[in-house]
């Protein structure tokens, strides 16, 4: 077959990562992300405090990264606190690879079972 058993899942994980990189393909978003990585979880108020862009613009950027699974938000009192989802980037690929390996193992068992 043209597609080897090992290539397909790797290609899938690359495709899956594309939305994440698209969400990061903007300088403002990269700065916000770097800041959340460096300084830890923060509210929009704090992120906006020493920035020259508006709260609304920051919210829009954060939501874009949230939609791509890069960031997550949690409620802390009246504020939403934003943080990097530490696992997000590698997870999608890792998840498919793990399931793919489970299938390899299951099919090896089936092979042994029917060829016995």
């Amino acid at each position, binding site marked *: 077959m043209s597609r080897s058993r090992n290539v397909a899942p790797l290609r*899938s994980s690359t495709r899956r990562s594309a939305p994440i990189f698209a969400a990061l393909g903007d300088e403002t978003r990269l700065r916000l992300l770097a800041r959340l990585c460096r300084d830890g979880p923060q509210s929009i108020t704090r992120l906006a405090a020493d920035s020259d862009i508006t709260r609304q613009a920051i919210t829009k950027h954060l939501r874009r990264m949230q939609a791509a699974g890069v960031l997550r938000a949690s409620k802390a009192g009246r504020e939403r606190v934003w943080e990097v989802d530490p696992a*997000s980037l590698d997870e999608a690929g890792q998840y498919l690879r793990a399931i793919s390996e489970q299938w390899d193992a299951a099919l090896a068992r089936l092979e042994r079972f*029917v060829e016995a």
Partner: protein
Amino acid sequence: MPAAASDRIEKRILLRASRDRVWRALTDSHEFGTWFGMRFTEPFAAGKRMTATIVPTAVDRETAAMQKQFEGLTVEIVVERIEPKRLFSYRWHPGAVDPKVDYGQEPMTLVEFVLDDAEAGILLTVTESGFDKIPLARRASAFSGNDDGWTKVVTLIEKYLEQKP
């Protein structure tokens, strides 16, 4: 409906056995459970929602030892189609082995087994699709414990921003 490559896993394996033998191993729920490592109490039927119990596989000792930790957990499957000796499909929650999680409300993936004749036996194609609908949080929590990816990206971002103030 053609799914995106990111949405599916596809595997092919050549089985040196007759079509009847492969078909029985897949669609006799007892036989399926024997190699897969699950116990079903009823036969498969199209459209049927069934609960299986994880039991160590009888086929491979190493896998059986690994499955031991999940023994007794239940797995829900919904049989989709049974086209005699050609196609068998069902839906389930992939990687749903965390007893603390209620997977009931989440979308299921579709697993499809297709049998084709090959020179020396049967070419079996297994496709699991629908991963794009699985919540990212679930995919993350299922296989966490590796933040290498992020560490690398953050380093790259910081470098990039240093060069481009």
